[in-house]
C-alpha cells in the first residue's frame, strides 16, 4: 500500500503501537512558542501544530556528545571502537527537518563513510508530518522549496481534518502500516482533499526573498567580497547559537577524555562550530578565518554555495532556526536580500 489513511481518533493507539519499533519521540510544547523533540508516552502530549523545535532532530543522529571509542589502561592503550545506538521512532518531523536529515545522510555516507553515524541511522524510524500553515516570519522554506515532502521518511502524515493522509516511503514504513489494523486504503476523495491542501499551500508558501534559488550559489560566489559580510560580521557575537540549532550544521571535534578513575576513558565526538575562532586555527597560531565576518560568510557559503558544488544540494532547509535564536538579530532572509541587492540578483 503506497498510500493509506489513518483516522485521527486512532492516533493514540497508533503511537502506542509504534513503541514496538522503539522509543517514540515527537514534538512537545515547552511554551507557546517553544517546542522540543522529546520522548512521549501519550499521544496527547504531541504538538501536532508546532513551529520548528529549539533543536532539530539532528540530536538523535549526531548527539552532542557521542562515544566513538573506549579504553581501559589496565588492558593497554588500545581504543575499542563503539557505537551508541537505541531504537527510536521520530514522529512528526516537518519537511524542513526531513531535508536536514537528508543532508546529514549525504555527508556521512559520502566516502569515506562515517560508520558511527550510519550504524545509528539504521535504528531510527522517521514519520514525517506536513506543515499545513506557514510557521512564522523567520522561516524561508518558500525560498528553499522545502515546504513539500521530498522523501527522507518511512511514513509521511498529512493532517486533513479528521484523518491523516499517509504516504509510505520505505519498506519499513510499509511494515508499520501492515502491522496496524486501523490504517485504511486511501480513496480518491482523500487524494482530492490532499490536492486541495497542496493548492492552498502553494498560495501561502512563496519565496520569502525575490531571488532565483538556482542562482544562489553563483550569487554567493560573486558576493564573496560584498559589504553585507562586514555588516553581519560587525553584529555577530560568535556565540555559535546558529550552528547549534541548524539542522545541517554537523561540524564536530574529536576529543580524548579520561574518566575520574584515571584508568578508563573514551574518545568522544562533540558538536563544534565554525563560528568559534579556534575552530580552524592551527597550532602555529595562524587563523585562516580570523574575523567574525570571515566566519559568518563561511557559514552562509556552507549553506548556499559550497555544498551545492560538493553534494548537489542546498544545506539550508529554510527552517529559520538560526534567525530565531540569533542574539544579534542577524536574519537569514535579510542577509540574503542584502547580498542579492549588492550583487544585482534581487528581482524587481
Amino acid at each position, binding site marked *: 500500500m503506497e498510500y493509506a489513511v489513518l483516522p485521527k481518533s486512532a492516533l493514540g493507539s497508533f503511537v502506542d503501537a509504534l513503541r514496538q519499533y522503539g522509543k517514540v519521540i515527537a514534538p512537545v510544547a515547552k511554551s507557546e512558542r517553544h517546542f522540543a523533540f522529546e520522548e512521549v508516552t501519550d499521544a496527547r502530549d504531541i504538538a501536532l501544530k508546532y513551529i520548528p523545535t529549539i533543536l532539530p532532530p539532528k540530536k538523535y543522529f549526531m548527539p552532542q556528545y557521542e562515544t*566513538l*571509542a573506549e*579504553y581501559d*589502561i589496565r588492558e*593497554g*592503550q*588500545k*581504543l*575499542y*571502537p*563503539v*557505537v551508541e*545506538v537505541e531504537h527510536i521512532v521520530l514522529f512528526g518531523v516537518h519537511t524542513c527537518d526531513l531535508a536536514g536529515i537528508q543532508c546529514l545522510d549525504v*555527508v*556521512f555516507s*559520502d566516502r*569515506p*563513510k*562515517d*560508520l*558511527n553515524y550510519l*550504524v545509528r541511522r539504521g535504528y531510527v524510524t522517521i514519520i514525517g508530518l506536513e506543515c499545513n500553515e506557514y510557521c512564522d516570519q523567520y522561516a524561508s522554506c518558500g525560498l528553499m522549496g522545502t515546504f513539500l515532502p521530498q522523501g527522507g521518511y518511512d511514513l509521511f502524515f498529512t493532517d486533513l481534518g479528521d484523518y491523516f493522509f499517509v504516504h509510505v516511503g520505505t519498506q519499513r514504513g510499509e511494515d508499520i502500516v501492515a502491522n496496524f489494523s486501523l490504517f485504511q486504503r486511501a480513496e480518491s476523495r482523500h487524494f482530492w482533499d490532499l490536492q486541495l491542501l497542496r493548492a492552498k499551500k502553494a498560495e501561502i508558501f512563496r519565496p520569502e526573498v525575490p531571488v532565483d534559488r538556482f542562482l544562489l550559489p553563483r550569487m554567493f560566489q560573486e558576493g*564573496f567580497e560584498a559589504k553585507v559580510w562586514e555588516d553581519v560580521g560587525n553584529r555577530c557575537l560568535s556565540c555559535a547559537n546558529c550552528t547549534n540549532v541548524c539542522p545541517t550544521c*554537523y*561540524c*564536530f*571535534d*574529536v*576529543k*580524548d577524555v*579520561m574518566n575520574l578513575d584515571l584508568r578508563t*576513558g573514551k*574518545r568522544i*565526538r562533540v558538536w*563544534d562550530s*565554525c563560528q568559534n575562532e579556534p*575552530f*580552524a*586555527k*592551527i*597550532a*602555529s597560531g*595562524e587563523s*585562516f*578565518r580570523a574575523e567574525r565576518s*570571515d566566519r559568518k560568510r*563561511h557559514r552562509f*557559503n*556552507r549553506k548556499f*554555495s*559550497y*555544498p551545492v*558544488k*560538493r553534494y548537489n544540494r542546498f544545506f539550508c532547509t529554510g527552517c529559520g532556526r538560526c534567525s530565531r535564536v540569533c542574539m544579534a538579530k542577524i536574519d537569514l532572509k535579510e542577509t540574503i536580500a542584502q547580498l542579492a541587492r549588492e550583487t544585482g540578483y534581487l528581482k524587481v
Partner: protein
Amino acid sequence: MRCEGTYTPCLLPIEEIIEETRDIKTFRIRRPEDFVYLPGQFAEIFVPGVGEAPFSISSSPTNPTFLEFSIKRIGSVTQALHRLNPGDTIGLRGPYGKGFPLEELLGKNLLFVGGGIGLAPLRSLINYVLSPEHRESFGEVFVLYGARTPGDLVFRWEFPSWEKRKDLTLCLTVDEGDTSWSGRVGLVPNVLQEVFTRSCANWVGIVCGPPIMIKFTIKALREMGFEARRIITTLEMKMKCGLGKCGRCNIGPYYVCQDGPVFSYEMLVTMPEEY
C-alpha cells in the same frame, strides 16, 4: 556496542627518534602492511591520553619497512610526542588526502622549494623520485631549502646523500646566519630568483612551508614564468577527522584532508583565500 572503527588508530611502538633541531624530531615507526600511501599524503598521529593531530609523512613510500614523521613541538599533541622515547606507543590513522599528482610530474624537471618544517612532505616525494625504481620517470631535480637559522634546518643528516648525486642540485639558505654558517643568507623567495636561473620550460615548482613563505614563493615563481598549473603546493590546515566531515579544514567546496592537502596554484586561485 562494539563496532568497526573509523576513528580508532592502530598502535605501534616508536622505533627511533632523530633530533632534527631544537624543536623538531623525526619519529620512525614500523610501516603496517596495509598502510599504502603516496608522497604528499598525511596521517593522524595519536598520543594515548592526549589526542590526535595530522602530520605529513616525511618518508618515501618506496621504503617498505618504516614510516617517518617529522614533527615540530608547537601544540599539545606535539609537546606530548616530544616527551616520548623509543619503545613508547603511538597510534596511527590514515593515510588521508591526495598526494602529489605523480602522473602530471612524469618526465618533468622538479623544482622543490621548502621552508622550515615544510620540507617534510617534499622529502617524501624527493626520495621517491630519487629511488632507483622511479628515477628515470622524472627529469632534473633542484631543491631550494631555507630555514630561519642554520640550527632550524631539518634532515641535515640526509643532505650529504643528496649532494653527492649528479642528478640533484641542493641549495640551502637561512634567514639569519651565525658563526657556523658559511652558506647563503636570504629569504627563500628572494634566493629562489637568484639561484634558479634556468628557463622554466618543462619545470614544475613544488612548494611547502609557512603560509607566508608559500605566498611569496608562488609570487616569485609566477614572475619567473611558471604557469599556474605548474606550481604545486601542500597546505597546512587543522585537519581533525581526516574524512572530509568535521569541517575544520574546509575551504570553499573542498576539504583539505580529502581533496588536498596538495593543490595546484591553478586550483588555489579558484578557492576563497582562507589558507
